């Protein structure tokens, strides 16, 4: 049971925050390119899903899984995108992502007069609280040596 990494994107596609806890394989491209590719993939998946859907959707795209990992997605009405990759045993991280948004992002970034929205999140308090929160999750376990 583990969390690999977390991305936070704003509505324009800029990656505001990225952190990894348990990543075993890098993408083979630079971090900037990886963020752009990730955002592009999510944007395309959302558009794909809205066209393919046989019925009207309320929440839209929620998650996808491959043979080794699962990607969970949460988008706020303001266009902020929270993405977390976990292993396959985590079935629903949507509540976690929602908690990260309302209890961590809103509290430590939005309410911080020094933080400029739209720029990279460099609040120490946010990073440390987020890290502590992730490590305290029931489905987080440190990488096996």
């Amino acid at each position: 049971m583990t969390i690999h990494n977390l991305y936070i994107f704003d509505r324009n596609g800029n990656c505001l925050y990225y952190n990894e806890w348990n990543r075993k394989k890098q993408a083979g491209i630079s971090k900037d390119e990886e963020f752009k590719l990730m955002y592009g993939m999510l944007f395309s998946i959302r558009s794909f899903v809205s066209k393919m859907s046989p019925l009207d959707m309320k929440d839209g795209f929620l998650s996808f899984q491959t043979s080794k990992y699962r990607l969970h997605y949460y988008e706020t009405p303001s266009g902020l995108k929270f993405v977390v990759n976990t292993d396959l045993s985590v079935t629903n991280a949507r509540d976690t992502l929602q908690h990260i948004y309302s209890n961590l992002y809103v509290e430590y970034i939005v309410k911080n007069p020094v933080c400029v929205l739209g720029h990279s999140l460099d609040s120490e308090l946010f990073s440390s609280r987020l890290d502590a929160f992730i490590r305290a999750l029931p489905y987080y376990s440190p990488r096996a040596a």
Partner: protein
Amino acid sequence: MAIFSVYVVNKAGGLIYQYDNYVAKAEVEKTFSYPLDVVLKHHDEKVVVSFGQRDGIRVGHAVLSINGADVNGKNTAEGKDILEYLKDPSNYPVSIRFGRARLSSNEKLMLASMFHSLFAIGSQLSPEVGSSGIEMLETDVFKLHCYQTLTGIKFIVLADPRQSGIDALLRKIYEIYSDFALKNPFYSLEMPIRCELFDQNLKSALEIAEKAGNFGTGS
């Protein structure tokens, strides 16, 4: 209908087979008088609702028919531009049917290729070694399952999120493909599948899966 559609994509990402199993439910027909209180706009060769959501007419729904006659893209059945037609008060009262736009074959081809690429990107961005591409994609109204064979053919099934047994169904569709398409001497590899027996057997496999799935998720 718990299984919505089946797509088969070849190695290059081209759609070679497509089957739809659902009936469009959310269609609304209403009579309007001048002036129209929903705002319409052109989008992708269709006329869609951009503002004025009410009574089952949602943003994104397309104009499907006017006064009972199915529309033809941006024009009415007679060939007049829809927005111009609706600006003229003498054409009112008018009865318009709104609903989710059906996908044209071109759009299905594009979506299949789009998924082919997304499948590959899902594997590239993996934080774990040796990951496959996207095998299951979940939304709140449907789940998309994908099975890629060793030869690169992808079988994609869109189903209700509660439907079970789709993995077995995907393997079964692969079996039907190898029996009725590959063993057909008139079928060329990677080309669109036009084999009657494949269609028939696919339909019956879908029926069996739906009944079995409902049985499982029932009491």
